[in-house]
């Protein structure tokens, strides 16, 4: 792999052992990929803090937080002192909500260790955003900006909607990027890999958040890790989908398949035309999405659902925007949850502060629900005790929760979920 003079100096230890270890990892990783060079990045989104007993023991026996960062974020068994981050670094979601430890079954020791590791990460320069949606709390990459992001739903948003450039990075490559401002120049960083490989022809209106989730789920299953371009025969896709719609669409496509980049003709920045999105090439495959495909996606998302009695409603995957919290609060205002149902809504901490101020938190709590942060049920494996069936408005969460926890999942609209929360029964159905 070719290294610039600056990169060689870091590799040779000019900036100390941690930067050297970081460069060493990047070189090993870049060579594994077959990358020819590194690219400069000034925007890293990663998991840095520690929430597991294993990491807690590791810190105790191996040399504190520096040892944890050395091993888990730099793949260095040697403990090196970690300097401040060189690059704007945003912290992603965690394994629980530190504001709700009991609800999430978190013991005091784990919480305290997390808090220590949060302080450590913040001291190094991590922005404690604690969300899978950094783009709604001030990290909005611009077109062409090279990023090093983890979290598949964030990666697909960053690449596709914002036109910035990132691969799906991991904890160690992000750790190295924080200290070096470098990441392998491979995959979606390069023009030639950003063209569409699969064409999806729409034969049906796609309007609601639920519609966009269904379309994303279908596409992910079909194209796996390809780059889909969505096109409406004979016209526009329709009303421009807003942030919540594209967030649900991308998260769904990233979970049923492994979509990291998509194009919507006339909407996303690299698809002014179909030809442009395809880069002048023919698609490997042409798929059609009509009412039958829509229904099939809906049914697959609801395969585990048997019992209409639900015990749990989870909203906020990916983390809810303030607009979605407002919508949920409007649906809840003046109502009460069914006595046997719990409602947890997840959002970034900063957006919760906004929801508090805007009056939504009070409405949700008065109805019996709770607004939580930093995590979600899939990440934390936490659901209310006794949950057998859960109602969800997220295709991603409906994909993961039954697999992870063995619960039944009902997938539907936000309104259907709130209705289920208030009545205790799922009464939804595809419209």
């Amino acid at each position, binding site marked *: 792999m070719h290294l610039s003079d600056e990169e060689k100096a870091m590799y040779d230890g000019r900036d100390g052992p941690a930067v050297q270890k970081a460069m060493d*990892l990047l070189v*090993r*990783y870049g060579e*594994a*990929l*077959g990358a020819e060079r590194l690219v400069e990045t000034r925007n890293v989104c990663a*998991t840095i803090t520690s929430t597991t007993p*294993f990491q807690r023991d*590791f810190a105790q026996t191996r040399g504190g937080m520096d040892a944890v960062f050395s*091993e*888990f974020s730099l*793949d260095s068994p040697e403990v090196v002192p970690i300097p401040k981050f060189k690059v704007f670094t945003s912290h992603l979601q965690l394994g629980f909500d530190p504001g709700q430890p009991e609800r999430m079954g978190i013991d005091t020791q784990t919480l305290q260790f997390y808090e220590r590791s949060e302080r450590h990460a913040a001291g190094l320069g991590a922005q404690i955003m604690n969300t899978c949606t950094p783009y709604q709390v001030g990290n909005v990459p611009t077109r062409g900006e090279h990023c090093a992001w*983890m*979290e*598949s739903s964030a*990666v697909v948003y960053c690449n596709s909607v914002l036109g910035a450039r990132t*691969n*799906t*990075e*991991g*904890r*160690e*490559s992000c750790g190295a990027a924080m200290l070096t401002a470098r990441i*392998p120049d*491979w*995959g979606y960083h390069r023009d030639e890999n950003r063209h569409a490989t699969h064409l999806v022809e729409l034969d049906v209106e796609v309007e609601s958040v639920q519609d966009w989730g269904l379309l994303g789920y279908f596409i992910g299953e079909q194209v796996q*890790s390809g780059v889909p371009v969505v096109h409406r025969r004979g016209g526009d896709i329709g009303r421009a989908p807003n942030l919540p719609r594209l967030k649900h669409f991308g998260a769904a496509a990233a979970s049923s398949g*492994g979509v990291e980049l998509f194009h919507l003709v006339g909407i996303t920045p690299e698809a002014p035309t179909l030809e442009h999105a395809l880069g002048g090439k023919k698609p490997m495959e042409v798929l059609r999405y009509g009412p039958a495909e829509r229904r099939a996606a809906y049914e697959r998302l609801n395969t585990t659902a048997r019992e209409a009695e639900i015990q749990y409603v989870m909203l906020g995957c990916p983390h809810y925007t303030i607009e979605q919290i407002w919508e949920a609060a409007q649906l809840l205002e003046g109502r009460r949850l069914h006595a046997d149902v719990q409602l947890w809504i997840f959002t970034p901490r900063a957006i919760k502060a906004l929801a508090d101020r805007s009056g939504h938190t009070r409405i949700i709590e008065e109805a019996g629900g709770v607004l939580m942060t930093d995590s979600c049920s*899939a990440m934390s494996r936490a659901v209310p005790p006794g949950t057998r069936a859960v109602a969800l408005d997220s295709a991603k969460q409906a994909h*993961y929760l*039954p*697999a*992870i926890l*063995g619960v039944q999942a009902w997938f539907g609209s936000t309104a259907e979920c709130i209705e289920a929360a208030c009545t205790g029964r799922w009464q939804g159905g595809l419209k």
Partner: protein
Amino acid sequence: MSDRHDTAPNPAPDLVLHGRKVVGGVVEAEALVTHERISGWGGIDPRTGTVIEIGHALRGQSFAGKVLVFPGAKGSSGWSAMFHTARLLKAAPAAFLFNEMTTKMALGAVVSHAPALTDFDRDPLACIETGDRVRVDAERGTVEVFKRPPAAHDGDPPA
């Protein structure tokens, strides 16, 4: 496991594949083969190296100490962290042989410190079976396969 492979040096492999080095190193171990991609986060238990994904062909089986032969990685960006943890808990695969290069796969192999190869001249999924003994020399880019005796293989459940 077959005694034959544990006790005697293998004078000549049954077949040899050539691939591109992803992570260097030399190792010899038994193969665990799946035609399905593997999820890291939510897909494996890093304490035991066991695949836990519901419906996965390898569900309940452990890749610890095996040469894992599979199409590639899928799922969340926690892939490398899960295999990294598995390595620290001595439950990582002995080697990775895979077809699809992704950042998840590359980084996961790197932090597993296990020899890894890809870009083969023959599809390893088509010619390596669970239980075969495999010698991976990532430096030279070779995979020597010593087939399990057909009788034993046909009769056994796949390990």
